[in-house]
């Protein structure tokens, strides 16, 4: 596998603004730099244009008539009412808050009201009560791929952490409690780990470089703010495996905010949750103009939303952030090009 160094990767993802330019200089092997606007220098194969929708991070509690139930229901209704009917929905993790079966089944019931099919990947809140047992029982494999109208879609479980609980004798509830804190300083950085890396390598082996690829992970595939696990520890390896493609779109949840980055041939977008918004961490954003405004804490819908992603025949993408309240600056309201 052709890799670029961890240090280069960190450097280019932490430096704002000029990051991709610097990347081009430091690591010319990374691939052609995409201009903001997502036009790849090498053209990908033509596709049949279509739209899909994204929902994520509902963090449902096992509490009757909890406010987050209504917000997820609003997201589902929003998707069902989209003018451009999406072909399917991707749900990007953290359906539950504390990994309880009751939370997951409540979420599934709401998601099942979608009028189009959906695919789902797990988040850490879905997983660490029973290490994915209830989630996989309900939704199946935690990583998958499929082809749709000429686009190769990949979903992976990016929230795997080394065992920090056995030696400490933690109960499942205690383990979940630790992981449920965003600052989880007990568990460290998470990733997709070796088995999924091998699977990914195998999955894309036979695809030609002009194949349009969209990849979903719960956490960003770049080093945004590791403290809050706004990262995927083996993102460098994933970038290495996907580097052969002309263009890859990466969409992630977990950050509960509008955020954007480009590294080499991968252009990525973070999307809003249906639970609560997260503030921007104390690091410079690589693209500071692509973000959402401050939210009004009195408005339970502020900073939250659903999303549609429109793909053109040339595999140019536009993320339309459907904010439930008026939280987007005009440039984001117009749609973010991928």
């Amino acid at each position, binding site marked *: 596998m052709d890799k670029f160094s961890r240090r280069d990767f960190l450097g280019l993802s932490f430096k704002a603004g000029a990051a991709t330019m610097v990347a081009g200089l430091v690591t010319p092997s990374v691939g052609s730099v995409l201009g903001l606007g997502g036009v790849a220098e090498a053209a990908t194969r033509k596709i049949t244009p279509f739209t899909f929708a994204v929902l994520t991070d509902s963090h449902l509690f096992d509490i009757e008539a909890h406010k987050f139930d209504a917000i997820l229901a609003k997201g589902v209704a929003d998707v069902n009412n989209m003018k451009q009917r999406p072909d399917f929905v991707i749900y990007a993790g953290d359906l539950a808050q504390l990994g309880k079966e009751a939370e997951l089944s409540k979420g599934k019931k709401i998601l099942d009201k979608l009028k189009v099919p959906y695919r789902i990947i797990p988040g850490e809140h879905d997983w660490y009560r029973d290490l994915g047992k209830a989630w996989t029982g309900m939704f199946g494999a935690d990583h998958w791929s499929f082809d749709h109208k000429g686009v190769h879609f990949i979903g992976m479980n990016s929230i795997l952490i080394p065992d920090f609980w056995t030696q400490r004798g933690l109960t499942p509830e205690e383990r979940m409690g630790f992981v449920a804190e965003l600052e989880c300083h007990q568990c460290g950085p998470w990733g997709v780990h070796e088995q999924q890396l091998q699977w990914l390598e195998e999955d894309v082996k036979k695809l030609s470089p002009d194949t349009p690829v969209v990849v979903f992970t719960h956490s960003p595939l770049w080093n945004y703010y590791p403290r809050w696990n706004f990262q995927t520890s083996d993102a460098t390896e994933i970038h290495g495996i996907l580097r052969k493609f002309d263009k890859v779109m990466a969409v992630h949840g977990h950050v509960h905010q509008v955020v954007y980055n480009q590294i080499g041939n991968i252009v990525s977008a973070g999307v809003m949750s249906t639970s*609560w918004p997260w503030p921007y961490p104390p690091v410079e954003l690589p693209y500071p103009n692509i973000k959402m405004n401050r939210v009004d*804490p*009195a408005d339970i819908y502020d900073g939250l939303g659903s999303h549609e992603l429109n793909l053109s025949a040339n595999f140019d993408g536009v993320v339309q952030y459907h904010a439930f309240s008026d939280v987007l600056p005009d440039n984001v309201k117009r749609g973010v090009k991928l």
Partner: protein
Amino acid sequence: MEAKRTLKKISVVAAAAGAAALLLGIGNVYAKKPFTAAEAEDQQRELLAMVKKGDDLWHSDKLGTNGLACANCHPDASASNPHTWPKYQTDLGKVGTLRDMINWCIMVPLQGQAIDVNSEQMVAMETYATYMHRGVKLAPAKDEQHGGVPVKSGPGYPTGDDGNR
């Protein structure tokens, strides 16, 4: 008249003290002798114990009734913006303090009961939020959402064993 004379006397004393400090090459003027290392350490220990209490409360789902904690929206106390208070806050409808806002958050997003603003619990939460913004410049009413101090590891404040000092 008396007051004026006293003021004059104080300023003379202050000037003398300042001159003495300059002569001694000391940068700071103290109202009394500087704290000894042992005293300073005791004070720091007390402060950090309060920060820890605040951290625990900040991450507790017991302040509210819907499972949420302050940390759900404010990890590492980010976006609590302690450097911007007091200020006019629209949700409070008045000029309020960080304590007022903490109580508002307990009552509205967390759907809990307000706590006594002078309680140790409140002091602890305010101490935690402020400590997580140490070094941030005071800017009352500045329209800014601050992420707090960047944290690499541990809880974000010194505990003596995590290299966070």
